[in-house]
């Protein structure tokens, strides 16, 4: 079995305060794993570990075949797509300018950026500054970034937060696209009901420890 993500007894402590403890998890190709848990359970921290943006303080693991903490980690990062609960946008820039930055850095065109924005229903708001848009519009633009640069490993933090019901099919489409390409997805949320229709299996993170079949 090819695991996209494999964590063994991973710990993360910040200033000696444990955030997640002995977390073991695997995500297979074509799989979508949902992780639910209350506020402060360590969901975002776990997602950042999987995104290689936070090094574990204990345990071991690999993401896309590369050992966490190794020198090869930067080489797999372009295959990881993360949409956090705060959209990764520069406020003074317009929505299309935010995507154009991503397009330029990844060798894509203006048309690709415009198409990605149209895909999330924001073609008409392309020229509006991000900090003058609603939270939902900013989150949609974050999704557009992931349509623009499709990842192999998709990580969504609170995928429903701030999005209305019309955006739900976009999230589903993004996950379907990643899975059909042989990738996988990890979704985290405080609300299990929001994940149940999207994930193949659900796990619960409580006080930094993962419960259920990991």
């Amino acid at each position, binding site marked *: 079995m090819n695991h996209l993500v494999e964590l063994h007894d991973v710990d993360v402590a910040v200033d000696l305060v444990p955030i997640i403890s002995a977390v073991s998890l695997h995500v297979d190709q074509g799989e979508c794993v949902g992780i639910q848990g209350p506020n402060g359970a360590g969901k975002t921290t776990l997602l950042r570990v999987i995104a290689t943006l936070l090094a574990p303080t204990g345990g071991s693991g690999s993401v896309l075949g590369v050992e966490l903490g190794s020198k090869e980690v930067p080489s797999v990062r372009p295959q990881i797509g993360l949409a956090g609960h*705060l959209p990764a946008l520069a406020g003074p820039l317009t929505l299309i300018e935010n995507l154009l930055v991503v397009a*330029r850095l990844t060798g894509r065109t203006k048309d690709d950026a415009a198409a990605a924005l149209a895909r999330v229903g924001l073609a008409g708001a392309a020229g509006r500054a991000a900090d003058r848009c609603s939270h939902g519009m900013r989150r949609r633009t974050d999704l557009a970034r992931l349509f623009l640069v499709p990842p192999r490993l998709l990580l969504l933090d609170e995928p429903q937060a701030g999005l209305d019901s019309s955006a739900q099919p976009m999230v589903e489409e993004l996950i379907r696209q990643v899975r059909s390409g042989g990738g996988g997805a990890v979704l985290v949320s405080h609300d299990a009901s929001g994940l149940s229709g999207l994930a193949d299996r659900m796990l619960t993170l409580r006080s930094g420890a993962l419960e259920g079949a990991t």
Partner: protein
Amino acid sequence: MTFWRQVRAITSYELLIERRSGETWSIITPFAAAALMTIPLAIGINLPLISSIGWPIFWSIALLFGMQVAWRHVSGERNAMRDAITLLGVDPAARFTGRVVASGVLLSGFMLVIGVLTVFLYTPDELNRWPWLIVVGLLFAAGLAQLATLASDLTIGLGARSSLAPLLVAPLALPLLIGAAQATDSLLRSAGILPWLLTLVLANLLLAIVGVLTARPLQEAAT
């Protein structure tokens, strides 16, 4: 994507943010201009003294307000955006270079404006070989941009980042300040400026080497 294409993309991204937010031109520059004006007002009608302190005041203002220009992107920088750029696989050294170029361009423009204001307000003693002042200014701007960008990378994740980084930059910028001020003084006295130019070039080279070599370790340390 090549290193220099990434540098170009990061530079234009940083400059576009500045163009939209206008922090340098609509906030920092007017305050620097006000600071330039207060000193002659405080001194009173003592034209020889005002003329003699014109260039030293210019460099002091360039350092103090220039730090704010070079530091402006840090206050607006969002963790999510930094993470997204990291995940796009942008070479940290290219990111460092792109941010330095953007800050250097802004600092050069800022210094040009306050330089013109200094001449207007202080009528400082005339410089011999004044085009060399442009070279000195560009070296000063490049050094300060590198120093501020390096300090911003060093302080990622620290709680007191916005107050700590200027404290790091100010003492380390002293070689730049001394080099620029002494070169200007030498131009006033028609003396040689080579030692001071070399000081500025050396400081820039050292900062460039440290900045590029530490870009990846600092990025990984911040993760």
